[in-house]
């Protein structure tokens, strides 16, 4: 069995900015443990010295020519935002103290 605990899942949910109910916490712990158990076949392999593949095609770092060209319209993006304000994205307060 995977060593995944309810506390691990609660911590991961916090990191991922998700709130789980008690019932979800219980259910997800079991389901995620099942997937991680399946992955134990990988953990058991000795792959010392094998290079990792993060990407199937190695094109190196692709850069474009440093030329000025038109981009996408700022207003088109801002108008799709939940709360555009003065040409920016407005959000609730970020710091601890009241404004």
């Amino acid at each position, binding site marked *: 069995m995977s060593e*995944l605990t309810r506390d*691990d*899942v609660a911590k*991961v*949910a916090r*990191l*991922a*900015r*998700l*709130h*789980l109910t008690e019932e*979800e916490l219980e259910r*997800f712990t079991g*389901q*995620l443990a*099942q*997937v*991680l158990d*399946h*992955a134990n*076949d*990988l*953990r058991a*392999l000795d*792959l010392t010295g*094998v*290079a*990792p*593949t*993060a*990407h*199937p*095609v190695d*094109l190196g770092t*692709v850069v*474009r020519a440093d030329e000025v060209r038109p981009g*996408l*319209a700022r207003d*088109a*993006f801002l108008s*799709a*935002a*939940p*709360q555009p304000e003065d040409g920016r*994205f407005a*959000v*609730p*307060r*970020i710091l*601890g103290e009241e404004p």
Partner: protein
Amino acid sequence: MSALEIATRVRSGERSAVSVAEETLTAIAARNADLNVFVHVEREQVLERAAAVDAEVAAGRDPGILAGVPVGLKDNLCQTGVPTTCGSRILAGWRPPYTATAVERLLAAGAVPVGKTNMDEFAMGSSTETSAYGPTRNPLDPTRVPGGSSGGSAAAVAAGMVPVSLGSDTGGSIRQPAALCGLVGIKPTYGLVSRYGLVAFASSLDQIGPLAHTVADAAATLEAIAGHDPRDSTSLPGPAPALVAHLDEGVAGRRIGIVRELVDGADPEVLAAVEAAAEVLAAAGATLSEVSIPELRLGLSAYYLIAPAEASSNLARYDGVRFGLRVAGSDVTEMYVATRTAGFGPEVKRRIMLGTYALSAGYYDAYYGQALKVRTVMIEAFARAYANADLLLGATAPTEAFALGAKVSDPMSMYLSDVFTIPTNLSGHAAISVPFGSGASGLPLGVQLLGPARSEERLVAAAAVVEAGRGVPGA
């Protein structure tokens, strides 16, 4: 009528694109309420676009190889001003301010995009049941799933609404629904089709491709959308391959390996279909042999660490700031949590958490790091197999279409639907599913041909041989 037949008639002026578009809109209206295939159709825009294609023909210009062909777009492909939800509440109402390169190229070839097709939320699923907009039903048997995640794109073609659709394939999401709906589906070589304007799920695995009734329609559509795009840094150099020109090339002299690991555990009818397809290929002059690539057995575990890891990073952008849903909170962190908790469904939450865990301190090497090494091992194993074979043959999915609800409460059993398709995504290679044979209930099955990177020309030629060998459609 096939896509190529429609295009031929529209180009010659024998049929108007508008009449084709009207037929499509009527077909959608007739069955969409029952099947839940399209989540959005821009009726006026479709008719205007079709009229523009007719105007080109009237002016003596050629609109292109897909002139007047109605196309369904999976709802993770952006088209300016057309709602794009990815099957998620978190993107409800979002209208992208730009168009995907693949869609731009369809338009440049004369096609008429008719709307957005339902999908598993953020393409995470194998049945189109995780969509926030309800499940799609299989047109061949509405008590069953169409497969997924491109289930809406498959059902749209299977129901006769459109002759061709675009889907995306991260672990089998084009090929598996194609198999379950009796269609041809192609997962192109990674980088052959630009991902610009495709909403990201797992960026090192995602690839756009076609679903169609015939190999020729799928090949023509892929040819139209493929080729280098400077807006995608992972786009392969060079133009699109000439796929239509290779359709009749046959398989004489080709070495094709039947892969034990790509049929093991499948239903007996699936095994019989693969064997019968092998006989068809042999009769056409190919040399068939049985091969074993044991490393492919590691694919499922590696995929369900790598794809969630990439997804957990890609889906961090849904934070209620720049687009989509925002749920109020007293400070910015509470707003993030409230938005993501309300906006994502359970399967997306599961995968985000799985990926976050696999990448977290203390587990990174054991899970994600190990999965990346397994990816190398699999790529090397494929390379050894392709030293002795031009193509590989196996099943696409282990079963025929399964019942709605059969696997939703057991994620692991759902994940196993992709066991034969996942290795090709991990390797970045190409594969095609072709309808062949039928399951115990008489529903269609698919066989899968796999090839190395950029082998699409020989893949469509071999697929055309299998297609011709299945006798009457649905046999």
